[in-house]
């Protein structure tokens, strides 16, 4: 028998004592399309290899060929759990580049929408941590209110998940009466559901034991990786873009930044639950501020920038300038001034940044999304090394790794 008929095993595979496990790319525990190649010794993780790129859609490259207003549809699909924040962040970036000043009411409307999105994002994250620890009920308690928030989006813009909400300069329409009504209902009824979720998980012995001390990262390591958002705050660093570089009139609001101490799964969970309460208080403040506007100011929903904001349909049909602006905007013929801007917003997960370079053309020369999830996933390897497989799954959900944001 010749030599080549024998099956050749990879070198060192016979003496190997560890198991290789592919967690992902499609696995119920990963909550998205990304892969971890884990080296297991029993149930303990010896080595983890994080793989990204399964849902890469080349958004940054596509954006180079699009007029600015069409890029909003791409930002929807970054962190799809809180797409309005992405939309507003993009509008803020363009406004910063074009030098547009938005009225206060627009800012407050944006704050309401962004905080609602933050609540839904944190809701998903906190309740999914519960699900991964084996407590499915809490997830169902709060999903009803996530649905209510999605209905509010529906009333504002017409879509639920990929919202494409607002435009450069404001919103395309004013909020409808039904949207305000549903928002009031949300503010009234939601705290009860949130308390129920907290009663289930916070100070629950099983949940506490499962999350305490697992998936921990030190503040120094987190800063070195470039962590932001709740995951950094859980380590004890009080960095929040809303406070350190206020955008959209966040300086008008009173709120606290919850911080943790150890940066483990439990702290991340607690920081997110507390942030939901803070977001609720911000929405209430913004709602009161909006109600205090009187007269013509109470109907403002966009900045007065005819060069960049689509005119009303009646004006297009009757006024010469409006018609010209309308077609110029739609055809993407408005030249962008050559500039380089970076605008960051506090996304559901952390600092969501837009780095936009224009060379004076009609579409961006280069656009980069600073996606927090991508950064968290780089640290995943280090965080889970030495922990149990079941803890690695909780770590994944408590870091709130969302595949759409990981690969732009």
């Amino acid at each position, binding site marked *: 028998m010749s030599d080549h008929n024998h099956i050749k095993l990879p070198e060192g595979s016979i003496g190997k004592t560890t198991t290789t496990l592919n967690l992902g790319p499609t696995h119920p525990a990963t909550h998205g399309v990304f892969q971890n190649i884990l080296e297991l010794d029993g149930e303990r993780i010896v080595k983890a290899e994080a793989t990204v790129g399964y849902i890469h859609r080349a958004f940054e490259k596509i954006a180079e060929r699009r007029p600015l207003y069409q890029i909003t549809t791409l930002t929807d699909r970054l962190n799809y759990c809180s797409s309005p924040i992405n939309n507003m962040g993009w509008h803020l970036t363009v406004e910063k580049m074009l030098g547009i000043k938005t009225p206060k009411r627009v800012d407050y409307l944006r704050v309401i929408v962004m905080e609602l999105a933050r609540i839904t994002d944190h809701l998903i994250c906190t309740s999914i941590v519960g699900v991964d620890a084996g407590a499915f009920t809490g997830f169902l308690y709060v999903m009803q209110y996530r649905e209510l928030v999605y209905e509010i989006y529906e009333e504002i813009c017409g879509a639920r998940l990929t919202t*494409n909400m607002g435009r450069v300069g404001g919103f395309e329409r004013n909020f409808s009466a039904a949207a305000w009504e549903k928002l009031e209902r949300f503010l009234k009824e939601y705290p009860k559901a949130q308390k129920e979720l907290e009663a289930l998980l916070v100070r629950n012995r099983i949940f506490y034991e499962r999350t305490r001390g697992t998936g921990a990262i030190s503040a120094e390591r987190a800063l070195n990786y470039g962590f932001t958002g709740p995951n950094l705050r859980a380590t004890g660093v009080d960095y929040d873009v809303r406070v350190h570089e206020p955008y959209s009139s966040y300086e008008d609001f009173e709120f606290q930044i919850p911080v943790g101490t150890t940066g483990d799964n439990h702290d991340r969970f607690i920081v997110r639950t507390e942030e939901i309460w803070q977001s609720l208080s911000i929405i209430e403040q913004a709602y009161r501020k909006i109600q205090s506007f009187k007269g013509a100011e109470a109907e403002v929903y966009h900045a007065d920038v005819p060069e960049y904001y689509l005119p009303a349909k009646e004006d297009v*049909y009757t006024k010469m300038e409006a018609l010209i602006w309308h077609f110029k905007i739609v055809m993407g013929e408005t030249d962008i001034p050559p500039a380089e801007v970076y605008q960051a917003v506090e996304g559901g997960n952390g600092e969501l940044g837009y780095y936009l370079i224009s060379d004076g053309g009609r579409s961006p020369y280069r656009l980069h999304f600073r996606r927090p999830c991508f950064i968290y996933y780089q640290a995943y390897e280090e965080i889970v090394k030495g922990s149990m497989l079941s803890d690695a799954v909780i770590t994944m959900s408590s870091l709130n790794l969302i595949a759409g944001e990981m690969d732009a």
Partner: protein
Amino acid sequence: MFLTRYFSEIAEAVGSLLKGMRMTGYYFTHHKEIITQQYPDNRATLVLPERFRGEVVMTHTENNEHRCTGCTACELACPNGTIKVVTKFEVNAEGKKKKAVDKFVYLLELCTMCNLCIEACPTDAIRMAQTFEHSVYDRSQLTRILNKPDSKLQEGVE
């Protein structure tokens, strides 16, 4: 002694059963507060939000007239190439050649319902419909021609 315990246990069991069934009983008497929707049985009464973006449709009057001038603003505004406006030249009563829409092709399978085409239309010819049941057995059925056959441009729109 034995009997009292026996009956108190029965009372306790009934009490805990009622406690457990409290929400069920509540919803039994409060029909309007039930969250679960009996879709698809409630199709007739289903109310979608006014601004819901289901699919692009072209509005037609009773005289089979639409408002589309064939300016292709929607085609330019669409990020995905969902809309193709095929135009033709029509000779009007004065003998002048005029551009008009021949076929307004809408590819539903590519559409992301982003509303940009509706915003771009200067004459309000297209709108978003509140339909959402788009599944079909054959993909070719998703390619739709939105202007109805023999429809004309509405008087006064140009």
